[in-house]
């Protein structure tokens, strides 16, 4: 556990890191970034909390089993969406330009970007983002766990 200054700043920064990470995931199909980058930003938030509060406090907040559950769900969602396109081919973008969810046609030319386009890409970004934030989060946690056990001996 680190000093009070660090912890206070962590408390302030943490929510904005989370929001920024989810923003990146959500706008993956419009702006630079995407599922992996957003997930990595969120996981860096977890790493920040881990450093500020120490492993022993944090491990009660993020359960490793929950994180690996989330990871499986993310990966399953990604491949599941890929399988859903199998009416045409594997990974087929069956939602694009269909008028439904994320189904608006893409506007060509200079425009601010419409979130409701790109078909399955945003869904896949969410799946990847979920997987990456859970995966990287558990990597960070497990490494902290390994180092802590090493120190004990």
């Amino acid at each position, binding site marked *: 556990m680190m000093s009070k200054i660090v912890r206070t700043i962590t408390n302030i920064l943490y929510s904005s890191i989370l929001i920024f990470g989810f923003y990146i995931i959500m706008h993956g199909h419009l702006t630079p970034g995407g599922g992996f980058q957003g997930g990595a930003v969120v996981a860096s938030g977890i790493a920040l909390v881990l450093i500020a509060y120490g492993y022993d406090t944090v491990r009660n907040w993020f359960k490793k089993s929950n994180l*690996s*559950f989330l*990871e*499986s769900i993310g*990966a*399953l969602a990604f*491949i*599941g969406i*890929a*399988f859903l*396109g*199998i009416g*045409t*081919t*594997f*990974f*087929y*973008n069956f939602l694009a330009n269909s008028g439904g969810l994320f189904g608006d046609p893409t506007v060509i030319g200079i425009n601010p970007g419409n979130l409701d386009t790109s078909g399955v890409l945003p869904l896949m970004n969410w799946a990847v983002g979920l997987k990456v934030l859970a995966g990287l989060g558990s990597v960070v946690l497990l490494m902290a766990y390994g180092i802590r056990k090493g120190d004990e001996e």
Partner: protein
Amino acid sequence: MINEHLPALVIGLPLLAAFATPLVSKINDKLRNIFVIGILGITLYLVYSLLCNVLNDGIFVYVMGARSTGLTLPSGYKMPVRIILEADAMSVFMAITTAVISLIGAIYSWAFMDKETGKDKFYTLLLILTAGMFGMELTGDMFNFFVFLEITSIAACGLVGFRITRGESSEAAFKTMVLYTLGALFVLFAVGILYGEYDALNIATLASRIQYTMLDKIALGLLLTGLAMKAGAVPMHMWVPDAYAEAPAPVSLVLVVNTQAGLYGLFRVLFSLYGASLSTQTVGWILIILGVLSMFVGVTMALIQDKLKRLIAYGAVSQIGYMLLGVGVGLATLNTPALQEYGMRAMEGSIFHVINDAMYKGLLFLTAGAVIYCTGKRNLNEISGLAHDMKFTSIFFIIGAGAIAGLPPFNGFASKLIIYESVYKFNPMLSVIAILVSILTLAIFVKIFQSAFLGPKLLDVKKEPRSMVLAMLVLSIIVIAFGLFPDVVVDKIVSPAVNALINRMDYITAVLGG
């Protein structure tokens, strides 16, 4: 409906199952094992359908995410931009080997991994490794090949270092991972060079445009070294004994096909990507020299080993040498009339040796795993007289050892005989070395048999569990069947695979059209 999507399903199904495994194993352990075996069984069936499909109808091109491979610009310029899967006879030949071995690995793991913790992770990694190997074998895209190469590397190293209570497994996994990653980065570098030069990632498109310039030669060197490392050729073989010896036995079994997937990548690059544009003599001789070095160094190092699995692992290095030798001879004669005379035959021997090698080496690793499981000892000096208690394992070991040493009527004999006789016409010296190595191979397995299975009974050993016997039995039956009917196997699947490698134009036109 299923037939249209076979290549994607072969890769997608194990991948989907891999991530479902942790969820299934929350319910019940036994259910999880049945689930994994069932998925691998279905995958084997899918691969078999793909095999029939490809052998009947020719090369199967599958486009991911769209209907056609290319993108036609308004200017009329057509470029193949999509990721494609391209299954020809060689790919499905490797895929069926992979599918059989993975299924057997999963069956064997049921009892073997009984007392370990974290089995859900084990099965997840096993399925990812299988999916990655299928990906390497079926893909038609260079970058995709790199991605699957890395997927197999990560999964394989995770499995090698699975027993975190042993320092040695972590050490082996570390070393293997460093070399795998470096090799994969070399491959990526080569892919970058090829992309920068020809503006394509598709193997068929690259092959149609390739010029064999200076940069191509550098890319060739990088690909050759990186993939030869993955295949475990001397002098890049040092990770092989570490990884094979420290991995749990079913993982060693799957690692054998993993190295062969690297070998497949090497053959694909040399024959389909570069093909006749190579200076075939030079590259053929490089392969031959790598092969001879692997055979000789592998077997002589095996002779002085005391650890059971390490000894077999060095034997594995020397078997990879045979495949490199035969294919090297095929490549060296690629542009000459000698190809029809004996080059094709040598390649047939090599490719046949790939499937034989997977079967008998897998069998040997499984018997070694059974010995370690039942006695708890890894060192040959500490075990003796196991034939008293482990009757099945002894018989299976004799079958495996006979096959690896090339004794009739086992399958190793058939493929080695083809290699000896056809390589003799190319250069008699190479054939002599190959036979010498075979004799030494017999010597090293006599050493194991004498010290571990014969001799006085020193230890009290457990009986081998049923699922392990079943897995070894299946492999033994395959070994004997391939030995009794080698002509059927060669005619049905090996010859088409060799023809698919040699006929580069078919591979290109299947994607680009006439």
